[in-house]
């Protein structure tokens, strides 16, 4: 097995309104192709951890390795490139760009990566749409879709560059059970079939238990590593 993500002694302080240790010596490792859920009470530091793992928050103590490479201390441009090529992100809210069609929203990270021609990217975006059963919506403006559909578009967007890791912060938090099931099945499939790694924060215990591994947090610490 290949360690795709490794966190060493992650600590995070907030200084306003008062000094507060949001993450306390968090250490864990995730293997390539794992589908990991992170659970814990509200305020336990799940989102804070995810922002650090996703390289968007760089103010923390400790070290993070992605695919064996230390990414702590890399400059912003390098981190941006890394996010673009290797990390997909899905939030609780879909966050699509409202002026663009669904298809364009999905294509944008790939256009930024610039690895494939526009025609190929468009083809791949259609493939992702098919995977999420949304190909009919391709040319609609993102704002014209239902919440569940928009969230699936956001997942398609997170998948477009075939990232090694997909990180999600309560991706099904606003979804009905039908949409939740679609999302879960896709995660299951891409981790099992495509060997992509899923790290998702969730409040949904059934969702968590059905994943490969559950990490539980409490008061900024991991209290259960799930193995």
């Amino acid at each position, binding site marked *: 097995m290949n360690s795709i993500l490794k966190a060493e002694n992650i600590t995070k302080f907030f200084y306003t309104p008062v000094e507060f240790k949001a993450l306390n010596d968090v250490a864990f490792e995730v293997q390539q192709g794992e589908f990991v859920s992170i659970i814990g009470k509200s305020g336990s530091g799940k*989102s804070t951890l995810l*922002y650090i793992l*996703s390289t*968007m*928050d760089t103010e923390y103590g400790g070290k993070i390795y992605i695919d064996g490479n230390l990414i702590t201390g890399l400059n*912003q*441009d390098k981190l*941006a*490139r*890394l*996010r*673009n*090529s290797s*990390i997909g*992100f899905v*939030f609780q*809210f879909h*966050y699509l*760009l*409202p*002026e*663009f069609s669904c298809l364009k929203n999905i294509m*944008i*990270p790939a*256009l*930024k*990566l610039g690895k494939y021609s*526009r*025609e190929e990217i*468009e*083809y791949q975006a259609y493939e992702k749409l098919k995977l999420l059963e949304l190909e009919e919506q391709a040319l609609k403006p993102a704002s014209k879709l239902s919440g569940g559909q928009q969230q699936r578009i956001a997942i398609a*967007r997170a998948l477009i560059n075939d990232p090694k890791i997909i990180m999600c912060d309560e991706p099904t938090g606003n979804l009905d059970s039908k949409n939740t099931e679609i999302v879960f099945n896709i995660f299951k499939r891409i981790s099992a079939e495509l060997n992509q790694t899923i790290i998702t924060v969730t409040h949904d215990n059934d969702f968590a238990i059905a994943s490969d591994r559950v990490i539980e947090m409490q008061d900024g610490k991991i209290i259960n590593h799930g193995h």
Partner: protein
Amino acid sequence: MSKTAHKIHLNVDLEIAFTHVLAKKKQTIIVAFAVAIGIAAFIFLNSLVVGFNRDSDAALFKSTPHIRIYVDDKISQSLLQDPSSKTTSVIVNPKIINENKKLLNPAQIIEQIKSIESVTTATTWLNVNVFYNNGSSQLNGSSSGVDITEANAMFDIQSTIVEGNIQNLVSTPNGIILGVGIAENLNIKTDDNISVVSPLGIVKIMKVVGLFKTSNSVVDKTKSYMNLSIAQQLMAQGPDYITDIYVNTKDSDKAVQYVSTIKSITGYNAEDWKEANKSAEANKKTRGVMMGSISIIILIVAAFTIYNIVNMTVKQKMQDIAILKAQGFAGKSVVKIFITEAMIIGSLGTFMGMVLGAILIKALSKVYIGGDKGYFPIHFEPQIMLMGLMVGLFVTLIAGYIPARGAAKVDPVSIFRNL
């Protein structure tokens, strides 16, 4: 797929910028129009200054050479040559020596000056104060003793002639060309005789061979041209008596560069037209500063409208910026997106402003104001158009850069947390 293959595709940053701008067409047009007004005002006001200055220079060059060579006034010195002896007190009463203003060897000086590259004309000139008499009527004025062919080459006197011909002066040694005001006041026509008296009391009977009319009625009431030899006789001087040499160069603005060369070649004093017309130059500067400050204020307002719309877009798009950054758009991509938005609006506005400016110039250039100006002295000035274009784009770049840099600094985490 075949459809998109034929399209020309933009870089994704530019594509986002264009999409943002197209999503708010109305605002874009309004801001572009504000920029257009600024650029049009800039082009218009500066073309006005350039046109006006060129027009007044042209009027000036009808009677002023680019460079004038003359003998400088000398101040009297003490007669005692040894002021080092401390015991002797010397009383000095400095005043201008009423010395001879004669330039020695004028023909040789002219030859030397004409050999300077970029000198186009150089001619001798002798001004003499005179009284024009016809019967009991008398007028005083000033006559220029000239080589009329050379003088014409310099000042295009022929273009002001309303009766007769300048060539008549060549064939008539005692001929005189009068301003129309003199002819009118003394009731004289061409081919009439007139007596001209110098301050030394020398009288010449001269034949009127032509009349000229300039745009300046004072000149027309006082000024005349005669052959150099007659002017010399009126001053009781010999045929080599010359007080001034007038020099024209290819580019009046560069005339000052030759002044020191001419001084050292000739050993006489030389003065360029700007030096000789300091108040006209001061007026020009005043006009330049006035119009310059007005157009800068208008441009600042235009820049502010661009800054405002880009700033507003950035504020509205915080969430989008955070998403783009989460997806791996670097800070410089974000800067590029918003600068491009500013540049789209700004170049649209600048282009519209150039067209609007050209229309204003065209319209005003058709306004007849009469007097010595005729039509309003404003013309299409390509270099000002170009300046308007560059200023427009530059101002847009700055106005767009400030909010764009702010956008690049957006911290996605804090945006996501607060939603």
